């Protein structure tokens, strides 16, 4: 028996065969993978996983791929016990899941793209595509290059070219569309329908998003097969946050861990916080917003999984909070100076919101807390311009070094 049974609509429950489709024909709801957990239970064990590859593929029994061929070294990133930051915040068991060092393009996107393109190859696609100006484009272009797939990246034409150097280097075809982000999105969906390419966040999205579950699997294993009490994660489309929750649920389902599920605390930037607003106002739908924040990597104005993220926040007795641009910068600096980890604005948002929750008294000092750092600060250094201490200028003289640097 196969581990994957079908695709199923998250809204109306209609079932579909395992194909590169992502929208329910009846109610237009998103499709999700249905696993045969009884079958998986027979094959999976802690010992088998521990003997597996040091990558996300050690959890292949819970991923919708039979034969991984792309992104073979993605995942299995460090879980760091954050002693210094923990001390400063008054938390005795704070951990950082550090996807800023994911392979090969230094963000959690390497997980989802590894799964998406491995599946795309199984389906027989020879072309990968995405609409992105950041981490996703980097990852799709890199993985497509190593997999020998053709690659198309769609961006709005008014974007500065230096923003996409990190993708251009992998030699994809970059299509600059004369229009705004909405126009690019609409065109991408039309192209995905017509050309039969693997658009990672369109027609292979149900498979793609499953990659984020490995963020939960790895944390549980790295904690000695335990579920943390609290998770703090950024919210963009809402997919990562809901899949971390699904990951912990699945580990319990197949008997690899026991105990309570975590409280899911979510972080958004104040300048793009449609999920936070829906949660706060008790709405089950998202009012789209126009993003206005330095946290570009999580600035999604109309998040597809927003309603599901709100549901997870409620179900897990969690919460969602926001951070201002200033707080995000402070969050980046705080993580860097306490733990030596340089994250980008999404990570800054997570740390800023973690700090807020501690100040609000919503985390007990002895609880096991995991903050997810999803991207690398070396990619977006411009946000820190003018926000850091300047070098101390001196003449090449010992006396001046003593007086100006050492003091006295």
């Amino acid at each position, binding site marked *: 028996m196969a581990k994957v049974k079908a695709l199923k609509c998250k809204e109306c429950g209609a079932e579909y065969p395992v194909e590169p489709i*992502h*929208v329910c024909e*009846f*109610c*237009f709801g*998103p499709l999700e993978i249905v696993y045969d957990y009884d079958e998986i239970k027979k094959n999976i064990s802690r010992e088998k996983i521990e003997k597996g590859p040091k990558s996300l593929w050690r959890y292949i029994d819970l991923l919708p791929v039979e034969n991984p061929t792309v992104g073979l070294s993605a995942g299995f990133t460090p879980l760091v016990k954050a002693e210094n930051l923990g001390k400063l915040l008054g938390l005795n068991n704070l951990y950082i899941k550090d996807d800023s060092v994911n392979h090969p393009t230094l963000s959690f996107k390497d997980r989802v793209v590894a799964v998406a393109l491995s599946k795309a190859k199984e389906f027989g696609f020879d072309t990968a595509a*995405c*609409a*992105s*100006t*950041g*981490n*996703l*484009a980097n990852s799709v272009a890199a993985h497509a290059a190593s997999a020998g797939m053709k690659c198309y990246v769609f*961006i*709005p034409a008014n974007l500065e070219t230096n923003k996409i150097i990190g993708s251009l280097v992998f030699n994809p075809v970059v299509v600059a569309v004369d229009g705004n*982000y*909405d126009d*690019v*999105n*609409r065109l*991408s*969906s*039309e192209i*995905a*329908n017509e050309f039969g390419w693997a*658009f990672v*966040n*369109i*027609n292979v*999205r149900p498979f793609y998003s499953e990659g984020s579950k490995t963020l939960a699997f790895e944390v549980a294993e790295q904690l000695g097969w335990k579920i943390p009490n609290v998770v703090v994660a950024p919210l*963009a*489309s809402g997919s990562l946050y809901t899949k971390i929750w699904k990951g912990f649920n699945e580990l319990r389902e197949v008997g690899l861990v026991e105990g309570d599920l975590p409280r899911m605390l979510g972080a958004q930037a104040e300048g793009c916080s449609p999920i936070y607003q829906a949660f706060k106002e008790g709405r089950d*739908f998202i*009012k*789209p917003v126009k993003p206005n924040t330095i946290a*570009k*990597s*999580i*600035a*999604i104005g*109309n*998040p*597809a999984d927003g309603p599901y993220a709100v549901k997870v926040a409620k179900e897990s007795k969690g919460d969602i909070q926001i951070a201002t641009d200033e707080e995000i910068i402070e969050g980046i600096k705080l993580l860097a100076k306490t733990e030596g980890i340089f994250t980008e604005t999404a990570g800054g948002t997570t740390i800023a919101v973690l700090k807020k929750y501690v100040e609000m008294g919503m985390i007990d000092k002895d609880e096991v807390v995991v903050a997810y750092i999803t991207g690398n600060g070396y990619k977006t250094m411009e946000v820190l311009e003018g926000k850091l201490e300047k070098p101390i200028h001196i003449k090449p003289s010992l006396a001046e070094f003593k007086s100006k640097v050492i003091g006295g």
Partner: protein
Amino acid sequence: MNSMKLKLIYPEEKIKEPLLSKVCKNFNIDINIRKANVQEKIGWLELEFIGNDEEIEKAINFLVENGVEVQPIEGQVFIE
């Protein structure tokens, strides 16, 4: 003949306007509503526009010009 799955989101000040009716009268497309939630302060509809590409495009432009947010359903793609 083409079909496009779309989500229309109406801001509060546009809810009382019969915009979809105007689309039906002024453009040569069929509209197939699949899901909707219209309340005092916000309204959204998930629907299909069926017709030729040019007419669909014109209908979308009409709605956008009138302040309605028009998102693709097939492919909730995001640009970071």
